[in-house]
């Protein structure tokens, strides 16, 4: 009965490996052709790419489709007549939807990448120990972004707009397409302050040792700050949204 899920998981897995290899080759091309000295070594870049492939599903790609549907057809009414804090209910949904596929995919993919394709171990034990909470914060932040985007539906109803803009923005600014260390300095420095870099870029750079232990705290604090800010933003949006909400349909 669950065959289709298994096939889908396997297919996703193979795709992820394939794209990882392609991106790895592109980066190797860059390094052999460029004379400038990049911010990170080739080994680090490859590690960054494989981590990206492993945690691909942790990125806030889209609003929660079930909530999109609920707001459109008005069955959100039932969520509102239950004695639960809608924000945390939706936040937990987002967290589950991001973490379940990530957990399923990350471990086997990273094992394979480490065995065959040049994924390196964490730079040190200290880096590894800092990477864990940083990764966790990235996940919490990602869930907060998904929830905030879902909440924006109270205003736009259809969600078409954000569903198109969000992937473009996170592709570009999270480091998923081009690792942020490759970007021009000025752009990179701006992006490093924005929430998008707190999702995967910060934990990856801790893992591969580009950040020194003295830099851990400020970066992790910045992640925590953005997570908190987005949660508060979402909660405020919900409080306002519920007041102006019109439950669609008779």
């Amino acid at each position, binding site marked *: 009965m669950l065959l289709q899920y298994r096939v889908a998981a396997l297919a996703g897995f193979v795709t992820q490996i394939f794209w990882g290899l392609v991106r790895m080759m592109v980066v190797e091309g860059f390094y052999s052709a460029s004379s400038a000295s990049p911010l990170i070594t080739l080994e680090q870049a490859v590690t960054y790419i494989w981590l990206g492939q492993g945690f691909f599903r942790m990125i806030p790609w889209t609003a929660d489709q079930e909530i999109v549907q609920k707001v459109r057809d008005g069955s959100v009414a039932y969520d509102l007549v239950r004695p639960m804090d809608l924000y945390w209910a939706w936040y937990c949904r987002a967290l589950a939807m991001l973490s379940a596929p990530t957990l399923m995919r990350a471990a086997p993919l990273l094992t394979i990448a480490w065995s065959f394709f040049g994924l390196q171990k964490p730079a040190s034990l200290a880096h590894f120990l800092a990477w864990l909470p940083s990764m966790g914060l990235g996940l919490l932040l990602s869930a907060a972004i998904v929830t905030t985007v879902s909440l924006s539906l109270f205003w736009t109803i259809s969600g078409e707009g954000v569903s198109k803009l969000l992937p473009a923005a996170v592709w570009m600014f999270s480091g998923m397409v081009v690792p942020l260390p490759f970007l021009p300095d000025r752009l990179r420095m701006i992006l490093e302050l924005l929430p998008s870099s707190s999702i995967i870029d910060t934990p990856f750079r801790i893992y591969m040792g580009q950040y020194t232990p003295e830099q851990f705290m400020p970066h992790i604090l910045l992640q925590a700050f953005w997570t908190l800010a987005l949660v508060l933003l979402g909660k405020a949006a919900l409080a306002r949204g519920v007041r102006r909400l019109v439950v669609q349909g*008779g």
Partner: protein
Amino acid sequence: MPQIVVEDLVKTYRVSERAAGIWGALRGVISRREREVHALAGISFSIEAGELVGYIGPNGAGKSSTLKILSGILVPDSGRCSVLGRTPWEERLAHVAQIGVVFGQRTQLWWDLPVIESFSLIGEIYRVKSQLLQKTLNDMIELLDLRSILDVPVRQLSLGQRMRCDLAAALLHSPPILFLDEPTIGLDAQAKLAVRDVVRGLNRERRVTVILTTHDLDDIEALCSRVILISSGKILFDGALDALRTKISPDRHLIVDLVEENAVPEDCEARLIHKDGHRATLAFDPRQVSAAELIARITKRHPVRDLFVENPPIEELIATLYRSEAS
């Protein structure tokens, strides 16, 4: 102290309009016409604990808007509303723990889960103690005859089965107040009877206050001691069903099946309103002439095969009321 008090509720929706077709769509990008729809134009009523109120009116009259405000999911533009002493939209969480809501056109059950799992989830959300939940659940299973469908995923239930499950789901936390928005919509006769039985039982035995909107006036006739009739956001009538009848038209109908097809039954105190073959329908005012007297007079003059007295269908009454209101 009434359990539910509503004073002067006003709710206006903005509906944006655009003309049909591609030009209409293009024009809509530049300037959008907005029209205000007055869903509620000052509604007031109060309901005591243990009442069973039928809330009726044509489509778009404001029935659902009222129920949504009472459930705390819609904020009115102005007016006051208090349910068990709370303003629903201001203390939503405390408020919704005390009410059960069924929106007949939607389901609150999880589409892919077996019914029983939806029930346990809802029990968790309302933090019902597991012992109490089990007891309520057993009552509901008995009352609504759910045993055979508990393990079926919701998507595979028929509409009648689903509605019974939804009703059970709304009652798991034993709310003292129940709002039912068209609970019998689309159901067959038997399922309607089951739903009515449960609602009546809850009201009589557990003194649950019920507000019920419906288009099926048999529901009203079978259940409600009190009717609130609204149209275009205003209350046209609030009182007992009998009083509604008397207010609009006190007439009752005597239906006679005559032996002779051509005979025309006449009486000075009754009007012939319909004649179809052997069957004649006479309207009379019971305050002027009793049914027994009228029947005696008619059977004396004409050989009669069968006869019966009935109240005019409530649809007719309401149609009359709408017409008189419009003119």
